[in-house]
């Protein structure tokens, strides 16, 4: 049986980007996607490419991802209709304006330039805004792209770079032993890989549970709407404090807006928008931009997103299983991050660490409800023997997420069994 360097579960944008980045570093990559690449959250989201307003912990990752967005054409052969139109976050009260001021202050540490626009100028610059707007914060670097194109474009580029992408194949179980991972598919086939990336999106906790570390991941179906084509006037991507409505217009004239949630059924892999949510979003959109009252809604849609209790994704090494890396639960704002997360995952696989701070996203922030001693893999035992506190003080620039105890234990094993490359502490690709 062929042993792949890396198996990726889930063909969303994160998985596709990881596949491409890994192939470019000469890893042998297999990606398993139950449906088609980018058919859930990655393909059906709003399409915002936005750094402004993110949790500060996400900003370094978002900054790195933004550099990839700028270079998309070179990387995947199409710009995926990405355009840096700017993102305008609007305040509807003085308190919200103060909130925007405060955020801009804190985001400065991350070199994110935000321009505050007061009540005097906001209507002069954006005369189509509704009366309720008192001001806003403008991020010129942000914009939007066509989500239907991005993950498939990364997938095609990854295939061209040598990835083995299998669509319509569902991974039903995976296990780990000293040789690496064995994945079993719904069609009865199996494959082996040295590393496993869990990029299963809303189903990420299912995969992490196979390795004894389920997390409280919920699901959410963003309620998305699009109008017919009207003359192009709404250049920036619009958001508001509180996030109950977001609006963008594409150059061909259609206005895309969202707000509220529809129905998500994780088991049936089915999501749909709701009429009453669409109606409310339409009212809010017209309130924001009254001119939209003349447009017609021609289509609504949704998809399933994984949502974590703290709104932050799970990214980084497993706590239980060496060679397992998680990247899921992007909580409704993973589209902009996706390309960058793929690059980070490549770092973790190839180098064992990344320069991009990701400690805040580690899976260990959720108390593991499973019986630790019963879970699989030597690292789990390491974790039970060594206190979690060693991970609590990881600062924003800590390069990687393996615990000291884990590293020590693995070094010992690697010494004892030099032929077993999976015990090598850094797991560099070169060694595999």
């Amino acid at each position, binding site marked *: 049986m062929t042993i792949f360097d890396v198996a990726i579960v889930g063909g969303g944008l994160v998985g596709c980007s990881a596949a491409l980045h890994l192939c470019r570093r000469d890893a042998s990559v297999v990606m398993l996607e139950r449906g088609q690449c980018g058919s859930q959250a990655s393909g059906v989201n709003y399409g915002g490419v936005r750094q402004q307003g993110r949790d500060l912990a996400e900003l370094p990752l978002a900054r790195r991802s933004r550099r990839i967005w700028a270079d998309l054409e070179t990387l995947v052969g199409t710009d995926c209709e990405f355009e840096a139109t700017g993102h305008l976050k609007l305040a509807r009260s003085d308190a919200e304006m103060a909130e925007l001021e405060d955020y801009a202050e804190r985001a400065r540490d991350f070199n994110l330039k935000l321009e505050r626009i007061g009540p005097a100028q906001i209507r002069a610059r954006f005369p189509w805004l509704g009366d309720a707007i008192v001001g806003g914060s403008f991020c010129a670097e942000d914009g939007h792209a066509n989500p239907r*194109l991005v993950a498939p474009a990364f997938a*095609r580029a990854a295939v061209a770079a040598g990835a083995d992408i299998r669509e319509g194949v569902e991974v039903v179980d995976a296990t780990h032993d000293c040789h690496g991972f064995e994945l079993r598919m719904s069609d009865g086939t199996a494959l082996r890989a040295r590393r496993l990336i869990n990029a299963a999106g809303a189903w990420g906790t299912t995969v992490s549970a196979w390795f004894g570390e389920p997390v409280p991941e919920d699901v959410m179906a963003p309620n998305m709407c699009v109008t017919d084509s009207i003359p192009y006037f709404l250049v920036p991507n619009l958001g508001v404090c509180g996030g109950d409505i977001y609006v963008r217009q594409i150059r061909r004239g259609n206005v895309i807006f969202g707000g509220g949630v529809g129905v998500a059924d994780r088991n049936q892999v089915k999501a749909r928008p709701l*009429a009453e949510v*669409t109606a409310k979003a339409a009212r809010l959109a017209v309130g924001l931009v009254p001119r939209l009252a*003349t447009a017609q*809604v021609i*289509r609504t849609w949704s998809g399933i997103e994984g949502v974590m209790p703290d709104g932050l994704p799970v990214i980084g090494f497993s706590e239980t299983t060496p060679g397992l890396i998680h990247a899921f639960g992007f909580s409704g704002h993973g589209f902009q991050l996706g390309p960058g997360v793929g690059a980070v995952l490549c770092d973790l696989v190839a180098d064992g660490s990344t320069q991009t701070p990701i400690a805040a996203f580690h899976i260990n922030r959720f108390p593991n409800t499973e019986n630790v001693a019963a879970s699989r893999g030597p690292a789990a035992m390491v974790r039970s023997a060594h206190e979690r506190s060693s991970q609590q003080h990881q600062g924003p620039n800590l390069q990687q997420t393996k615990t000291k105890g884990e590293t020590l234990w693995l070094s010992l094993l690697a010494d004892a069994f030099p032929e077993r490359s999976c015990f090598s502490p850094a797991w560099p690709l070169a060694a595999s």
Partner: protein
Amino acid sequence: MPSIVIIGAGPAGVRAAETLVRAGVRPTVIDEALASGGQIYRRPPSSIVRDSKKVYGFEAARARSVHRAFDDLREQIDYWPDSAVWSAHDHKLGVITKSGPKELAWDRLILATGAMDRVIPFRGWTLPGVYTLGGAQVALKYQACAIGEHPVFLGTGPLLYLVAYQYAAAGVKVAGVLDTASAGAKRGALFGLVSGGRTFLKGLYYLAWLRAHGLPVVSGARPVCAHAGLDGAVRELEWRDGHGSLHRTACDSIATGFGLKSEAQIADLCDVPFIFDTGQRQWVPVQDTDGRAAVEGLYLAGDGVGIKGAAAAELSGERAAHTLLHDLGHARSAERLKTLNRRLRRFERFRRALDEKAFKFPADLAASADDDLMICRCEGVTAGELRHAARELGATEINRAKAFTRVGMGRCQGRVCGPAAAEILANSLGVPLAAVGRLRGQVPIKPVPMAAFLDGAVP
């Protein structure tokens, strides 16, 4: 009292309502049109008084009967005319009415949503002056206007001859009737067509009448290009005959259609499973022999569940209502169900002869569209872009092609371009039509003005 709803007030919806009322049930009937009758028996507005014989021809008696049946029900039903169902989810319908959006819950639902023209794009099909056959017929029936002074009728199917006849009989100078089906195909289908009885004889009459009045009727024709005049509107149709010779026919309008396709988006949103009908080359909702869908409380009737025509729609409308009553515990309808099923079966053979032989859908015409021909006019997607998505981008299925190219993503939601787009995709992938799937129904079923959602708004 359970909430029982019928969507559509054409022949199927009217007979369903009538049957329910007779059994003492009060249904709500939602219809997009201002008055009952559906597309086939569409009524002129009250301001236009015309003899029904003139409006409906041979169908006058049937039309009057359907209209009268519905008018007699008015006190015993809740009637929502001029109302469009835009969403359907979880036994709830979103309806846009004159007085704003409403929500209507249902316990039992009969879908009698009818059909629309099936279109094949050809060069010049988006020019002003090009209509669908159904559109041309509605203009005549509803508004007593013609689409032009010298229209050409192009396509295939019984409607082609019917509309051409109606136009000619109304005094319009018909420039030509071009049928893409060959004369040989029609002769070959004769045996099956005879099973249509009266319907078949009417068809023969239209054809004979057109010929007797010296109108050019051509079989085996292929459209090449509709040319525009200086005003930008259609001026001439270029076409080939069965031997490949080029012809040019001067005209000021074109009515085109290649049979009908079921309007089944609401069934789709209600999670009714679909099946591919090879004869009609379209996906249709699955029903059991009594008109039940595989969704609890949902029934199907009329052309929305496969094209069988108006006479069959009256029967299947009544059948759906009887099945519903039966499911509610009414006893006697079982006997009537048997009779209806027997009569409906008679239509099947005739229908197969029509669809699979006499007026076969020219799939090759759709599939062979030039690369630069615009297929999806809402979103401006060409045949070449579709082929590129199929061959280069890995779009092996119609919804994937939609995601990549925007085909079927616009105002019409693929109603118009869907069939041709699927033919092009299947052809360029070298797979059977069924293998590329069907465009998923999405809310809203028809465009909804944003203004309809504003508080207190009257759209």
